[in-house]
């Protein structure tokens, strides 16, 4: 117990240092810098990736519906927080829309999670009976159906149809100058809760289901009940993640929540390691930094001296990127962390190390 406490304290200090570093970077680099962008978006993706890992990595449910639940969360948040004064302009084709009130940012974030969780509860009831890739394709299908419904003109007064939602409070409005800190706090709380869940008796039950469904059921674990729980909780956090993504983006459109978004998150989870929270977090920041920042030069046609650098053209960044991902998928199947956590590296390597 004492040793555990010590490790907990070290971890907390480490996290606090990370927060301070994030804060410091924002204050020194200024809001215009790409670092700040990467920190914000990376943190948001970290939450979404961890929520997906809870399903795919910890419970062994291959779900591809994450973008759908993010969409629900993002829309719930935006719809509830667009200021009254701006509604007429945003809902320009729908006479200002149906919703004629606004709520605070934090309650709206919670509502975003809850609405996404409700959707998940409804969808989970039928689809969680399916297994493996059928579950994957069914959740993917539901995400697409959600997207079609949100864009439906008839409920346009609620969702603004397929048009852009904007003018809702963004990261910048809430804690001006400390956007990174705000993102880190919300994401930190959410990931903290997921970690607590994973390390509770329920988390152990999830892992048991992942390892062997038949044995888990023989241990008295109600498969449907626990899968549903993992599905709903994952979607709850995906909903909050979607809302944070909306806050980060400043504008929101159903069209961008395509299945390719789910695939990206899945790839982050794979790169980080299925079943590793810290892996997902690291992979998110890496992924975002590479795609938004470090590899951007690959997209620019560059002339060095008099020679045009070959291959560099719009789109090359993503090619390089997807090749790297394929290399990870094929040759480093365990990802960065496998199913271990950063804080376990020192202590449990002996017990869990020798395995492939």
């Amino acid at each position, binding site marked *: 117990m004492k040793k555990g406490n010590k490790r907990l304290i070290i971890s907390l200090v480490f996290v606090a240092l990370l927060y301070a570093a994030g804060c410091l970077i924002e204050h020194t680099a200024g809001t215009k810098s790409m670092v700040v962008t990467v920190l914000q978006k990376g943190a948001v993706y970290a939450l979404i990736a961890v929520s997906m890992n809870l399903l795919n990595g910890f419970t062994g449910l291959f779900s591809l519906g994450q973008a759908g639940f993010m969409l629900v969360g993002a829309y719930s948040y935006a719809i509830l927080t667009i200021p009254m004064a701006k509604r007429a302009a945003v809902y320009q084709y729908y006479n200002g829309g149906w919703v004629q009130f606004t709520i605070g940012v934090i309650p709206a974030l919670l509502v975003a999670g809850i609405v996404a969780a409700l959707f998940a509860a409804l969808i989970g009831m039928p689809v969680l009976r399916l297994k493996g890739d059928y579950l994957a394709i069914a959740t993917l299908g539901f995400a697409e159906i959600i997207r079609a419904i949100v864009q439906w003109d008839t409920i346009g007064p609620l969702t603004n149809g397929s048009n852009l939602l904007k003018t809702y409070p963004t990261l910048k409005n809430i804690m001006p100058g400390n956007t990174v800190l705000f993102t880190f706090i919300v994401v930190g709380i959410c990931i903290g809760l997921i970690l607590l869940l994973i390390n509770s008796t329920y988390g152990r039950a999830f892992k048991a289901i992942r390892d062997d469904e038949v044995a888990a059921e023989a241990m008295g674990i109600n498969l449907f009940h626990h899968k549903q729980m993992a599905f709903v909780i994952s979607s709850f956090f995906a909903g909050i993640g979607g809302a944070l993504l909306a806050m980060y983006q400043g504008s929101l459109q159903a069209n961008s929540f395509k299945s390719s978004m789910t695939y990206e998150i899945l790839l982050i989870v794979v790169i980080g390691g299925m079943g590793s929270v810290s892996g997902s977090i690291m992979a998110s920041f890496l992924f975002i930094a590479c795609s938004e920042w470090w590899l951007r030069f690959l997209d620019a046609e560059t002339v060095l001296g008099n020679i045009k650098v070959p291959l560099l*053209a719009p789109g090359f960044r993503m090619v390089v990127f997807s090749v790297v991902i394929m290399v990870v998928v094929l040759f480093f199947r365990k990802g960065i962390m496998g199913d271990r956590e950063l804080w376990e590296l020192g202590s449990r390597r002996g017990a869990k190390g020798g395995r492939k």
Partner: protein
Amino acid sequence: MFDTLLPYLLAGVSVGGQYALIAVGYTLVYGILRLINFAHGDIFTAAGFFMVYLVASVPLPLAIPLVIILTVVLGFVVERVAYKPLRSAPRMSIMISAIGVSYLLQNLMWYVTGGLAKQYPVLPGLSQTIQIGSATTKLVTIVTPILTIALVVALVMLINHTKIGMAMRAVSVDFETSQLMGIKINNVISVTFIIGSAMAAIGSLLYFTNYTAVTPTVGAMPGLKAFVAAVFGGIGSIPGAMIGALIIGICENLIKAAGWTAFSDAFTFALLIVVLLFRPTGLFGEKTTDKV
């Protein structure tokens, strides 16, 4: 009434036939590897681009067989590089690899084309406009279902009456046992991918003659719909895939006719979910029991 519906039915049968050719690839691969080959739709797209670029340099009669050959090579390479090394890995890994390949192919095509739509060459004959009853349409609309049925019949004969077909059936029933019986699994799987890719290439010829713009993501939706068709028809069943695809093609067009245009894609997924929940083996699939 029939006069109003005829154009929709024609369009539905035509697009359904094209889905069917893609669906064959899904159903064969799934039948043997239990893998949803997410990259199959992108292989179909690649076939479209092969044509666009080939026609610029070689004459059409040569370009068509070249397109089929290149597509087959692509399908073969994808299997060897991305799926074969994962043969013993959990199924989730192979599926992730398939998603990765799809991502890679799309990005590659985006890079090569700049993400701009490319005009598909006109295939003499197929692109001609003809009049059927109240509907005016391209000749390809009529050719597609005929060609599709012919190819499906040929394929079914291949599978039922040749040695390789027997091997394919054996592998799809029991992977390990057929391996023990001396069937060269890797060859069988390669043949599966080759057949699937060739069908996708033929499908792309017909599809893009009908819908003349090729973009890097154009195959994603037809790919998914073809997969749904394969599930609907009963995964592993080639005639099932064809019938499923035709039904989906027709329904899709009738839904648009009813004015529910925004839901024509969503319908496919709704159908998929309903099938999975109430008849997971599809129209013609066989029931299996998991052994504990």
